[in-house]
């Protein structure tokens, strides 16, 4: 059981440079105990800003520490959305596909949802306009807040590490 992968393997995982057989082995193998810390450290090096990453939140998005007791959701382009326990989508840009014409850009005829029954909500980062999430819901559905991590329990009870702060990051 590997307690830990070498740093370069984790870098390759983050940078999408692993071959399929390496990924497959990784899937089949025991889970390494320090993956979170290793990936977090690599991601911290990859981003262009200094706020300490508390957790990777979603593709391109992070919860970062602005102070000891303030965490925000931030895109890797630098755009900051909201407090970590709020729904970042409320601060995003949205495009709704709810016509046949708009569906046909993505799907062939007859192979897309009926616009009266389902719409696609595309959420973009206002900073870099990356498409961060697409949700397919009935028209009229509230915006879904998908993930509220319990960061304190995770750090304090699950991995027994201090939560990163701007002070500890620069230390």
């Amino acid at each position, binding site marked *: 059981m590997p307690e830990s992968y070498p740093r370069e393997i984790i870098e390759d995982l983050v940078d999408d440079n692993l071959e399929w057989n390496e990924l497959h082995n990784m899937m089949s193998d025991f889970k390494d105990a320090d993956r979170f810390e290793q990936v977090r450290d690599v991601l911290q090096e990859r981003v262009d800003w200094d706020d300490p990453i508390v957790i990777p939140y979603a593709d391109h998005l992070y919860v970062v520490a602005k102070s000891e007791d303030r965490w925000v959701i931030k895109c890797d382009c630098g755009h900051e959305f909201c407090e970590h326990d709020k729904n970042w*989508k409320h601060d995003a840009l*949205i*495009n709704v596909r709810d016509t046949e014409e708009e569906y046909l850009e993505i799907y062939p005829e007859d192979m897309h*949802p009926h616009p009266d029954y*389902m719409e696609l909500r595309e959420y973009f980062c206002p900073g870099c*306009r990356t498409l961060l999430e697409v949700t397919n819901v009935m028209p009229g559905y*509230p915006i879904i807040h998908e993930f509220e*991590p319990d960061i304190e329990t995770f750090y304090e009870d699950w991995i027994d590490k201090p939560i990163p702060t701007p002070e500890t990051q620069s230390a």
Partner: protein
Amino acid sequence: MSSEQHPPDASDEDDHEQTEESFPRMQAEKQKVKTKLENGEGIGWDGQSLRGQFEDLEERTEQTGHYAGFEKLSLKDENPIEYEQMFAQLRGELVNARETSKEVAATPIVEQEGELCYGLFTPEGDSIAISTGIIVHIHTMSEAIKYMINHDYEESPGIEPGDIFVNNDTHVGNVHPCDIATLIPIFHEGELIAWAGGVNHVIDTGAVGPGSMNVSQASRFGDGAYYTARKIGEDLEIYNSWKNDFPDKTRTPDFLKLDERTRMTGCLMIRNAVNALIDDYGIEKFKQLSREAIEDGRRGFRSRIQKTMLPGTYRGASFVDALYEGQDNLSRAYASENHLMHAPSELHVREDGSFQVSFEGANKWGWHPYNCTPAAIQGGIWVMLTQTVIPNKLVNDGAYYSCDFHLPEGSWANTQNTETAHAYAWHFLVSAWAPLWQHLSRGYFSRGFREEINSGNANTSNWLQGGGIDQFDKLHAVNSFEAACEGTGARYVEDGEPHAAAIWNPEGDSGDAEVWEMTEPLPFLGRNVKPNTGGAGRRTGGAGFESMRTVKDVSRWLLYEMGNGYMSSDSGLFGGYPAASGYILNAQDTDLKERFENGEDFPQSDLDPESGDFESKIDGDITRRPEGISTPKEFDDYDMYLNYLRGGSGLGDPMEREPKKVVEDIHDGYVLPRHAKDAYAVVVNKVDDEAKHNSAVQGEWELDEEATEELRQERMQERKERAQPVSEWYEDERLRIRDDEDLIEDVKKTYESSMRMSKQFTEFYHEFWDLPDDFRFSLSEDAEKSLENRFKTGKKRKWKNPTKSHETWLGVGRDDEPEVPYTWNNERSIQDLSGPDASFETPSRGKAADDD
């Protein structure tokens, strides 16, 4: 008892040398049970009644926080090698039973697709070890055993050595009635020490329409034959009453007979394996193992969650359509209405690594065959977890003991009404668990386990089903299990697997066309990868495929479709798009025969529905429509039917997909060339009409890198122009809802149904859109009547006498727990989550469990 102490004839039985009437070990056991019963003792351990033993187990589990009170795994800790040997031996024998017995089966469903599985259970019905295959049914069999215990089968009809039980009742322990389970009790020294169980999917249940999952019935009475945890034999001999009963309740009696032999073969192999294990290790070690393995599984689940996920709350919602308005051949006029499934999915991962899964807000059940029971939902989620959280040998009911389910009574997810139909419960079930993949993937992402992230699964359809008089002039039914082969959701690190498997059978397969043609009068005209079925994304969803079938040498033959049409049930993840939805394509009264005779071209595919290619190659009455469900309709020789199997959803922004991969997608038949530009902003040019690649049908294409770069820049600008701040959109949308504009009745009816089911959902909906407290969507008289009819129908429970902990079926969470919290409202704090004290013990730390 050691092996030396066995009566000399015992080994004969195990070596299959006994005469027909012998089974000496079983007969000896039967005598011991008889003596115990005469002495007023039960068949449980140490003379307990089985129900008493079950209640005792529940109590010890509750009091100690460990399965059956096993706070220590003494066998595992003190003799780990022996523990592993014993468990591996059991596991191996279960897999062996499946691999051997499936060769007994006649239907390609079992033999080709492997729609079969086995489990070994404790006397109380908790699974200890399982085979491979359709392992969703491990937990459903567990429920069936618990049903028998809770309904005093020990007293009547009795549970004795050599007894054979069968169940396919969804309200007892099943997903839908076409999965039939055989259960046999295993005894040692007059005590019930285990159950062996096997399930397979049968080809016809004798429903109102042919096939295993008919779609035109409104209630249970059209679902086909239900066998409610019935004793069908003793002394390992099937009763004549059963032999003369069930064959007339199906259109395919020979297949069902062979299926039964398959299950019996496997169960007897498992029984022999258990006897051998006891001979080798002794009964006390076997009992110890059976308890420890489940406690080990429970700990392993939690340990794995704590290693790979994040505590907190995860939410999602999925939908699927079941459109019946105007369908022909419905069994009740009031079933002629459209239904949409609404599945709000909320997962709490608690501090101790345990799960709470809630479907609060799910809408009402309907007069359609897609309703679910708790056994279906729990089994379904369990099989999904085995493919993500616990992809290892230690899969058993330990995982179940780490999950609490809140399935609102009266919703489609827990009808608690035996009048409801369930023939294709999977339609809602598969769709409803789609968000769970994403909950797990979000956790894996945060922990850095990128190799485990998966955007979801396919909607496992279309189901080609039907029947009539076949090519051998016999009454027959078909259920093509090509649906066991669908595209999978995109992974974070790789595209989804194309035409690979179905979530309910990890070892799924499309089956050989030639084998299907032997049992179905539906020759293949073509079988192809279907473009644009996988969702677009940085990683694409795995593509589905399609088969073009015709009909030959039949009379009074019916066919129908079953799948999603107006809705995509599976979301994309992190900017990926949902998989494509389905459609129906048939041709009747065709000129196919003449085309064959004249050597003319005929349709072999429908790769691009917009191309007109199909219509250009056949004359006839062509039906092409974007729905996914049709009720049985007549087909004749040379009619045509498209069987389209779905793809998986995508992951990541499609603009981040490497342009050269999009060209490969075109050449592999996964993407139509025009969608390179539309969906991926990739410019490709056709360089040759002749395709050089194996799967390519669209010619040879090459990438224009410069134009692609330019287009992608333009597209980013377009995004800015097309998109608006969510705050602006919210205001417009809020007014639209408040003023009850635009939304169609089917959608409004679904919201109303959820609101009438759930005070919490109502409050959430009102608060989110800032609506007045008395807000209600206006509905037509018909829609009002439909809701009223179903809400007033009330409950008709199947479980009359559940033990204490089994009330989880009926309520919210185990009854020693607080209700699963509802947390969709914005105001809540994540600290409102119930703490680990609510369920079982605090997690053990510092010691790696065998969880990987």
